[in-house]
């Protein structure tokens, strides 16, 4: 996966939701089925974030293992090596339960203390 494009997309998403506030952390959920190399993503994120509200922010990557479910017999299994046919009934209709994520789950921002109103 082109980590440069992905990190640019992540920074854009974070900046939009930051609404002008400085971003300190970006929590990203990365599914094993997406072609992302975590070290590479962290590297490009730091570069792309310069001169944006994300500059200096920590990119936290939650790696999600790939889990599939057979639509025919409801068997669920985790995939390491590519094995997408159902180990239970050899069915081909398979749903991805998790592992396809490339999602900005949340961001931490710095917020001015609100003035006390009596």
């Amino acid at each position, binding site marked *: 996966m082109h980590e440069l494009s*992905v990190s640019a*997309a992540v920074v854009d998403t974070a900046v939009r939701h930051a609404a002008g506030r400085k971003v300190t952390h970006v929590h990203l959920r990365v599914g094993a089925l997406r072609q992302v190399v975590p070290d590479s993503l962290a590297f490009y994120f730091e570069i792309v974030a310069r001169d944006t509200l994300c500059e200096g922010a920590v990119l936290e990557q939650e790696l999600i293992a790939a889990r599939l479910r057979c639509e025919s017999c409801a068997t669920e299994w985790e995939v390491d090596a590519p094995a997408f*046919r159902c180990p239970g009934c050899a069915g*081909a209709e*398979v749903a991805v339960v998790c592992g396809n994520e490339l999602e*900005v789950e*949340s*961001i931490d921002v*710095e917020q001015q203390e609100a003035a006390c109103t009596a």
Partner: protein
Amino acid sequence: MHRVKVRVVEDALDANNTIARANRADFDAHGVTVINLMSSPGAGKTTLLEALLAEGIDGVRVGVLEGDVQGSMDADRLASLHVPVTQLNTDPGFGGECHLDANMVRSALPALPLHDIDLLIVENVGNLVCPAEFHVGEDARVMVSSVTEGEDKPLKYPLMFRTCDLVLVNKLDLMPHLDVDLERFLHNLDAVHPDVERMLVSARTGEGIDAWRTWLSELVAARSGAAV
């Protein structure tokens, strides 16, 4: 100053997918079926298009959007086949991207003769990794895997092989000169994308091209039937 957690829950490629949907809406409005044709560099996308378009598809007006980092070699090759061809380069203006994305395809829309075609084939940049991630508004994805690439490719690039609706196994004519185990390749393909439609073809000899022609024709017919 204190830290606040802001819940986002947004796909990082959401922006691309939004534009892809807009492209799709524009294509649908013109009744154009769109194919995203992908492969590694040199697998034979352009040569397959030459073979396909030499005879055309009965009752289907075809247009091609050529995606390359630089140059118009592919568009030039297809220009002699009397189909409208538009070249899209990722290098000037898009940073030399290794894939087409929805935004680039959207930028090419004004140059496409959408009123005059029924089928648009988007020939993507040769790359087995990134194009799989970026939808451009297509109706179906076709990938080309040539026998010269060996048996392992599906295992190494599962996303590309999984995201496609049809796999064209090309350069069949070279099998006598190769030590490639085609059965093993098909076995690996099945492990990654069980029961995916596949066709064994040779752009050079024309083997299998008619079957692909029929597949495209049926896809266009089904889409026109659906779009009322």
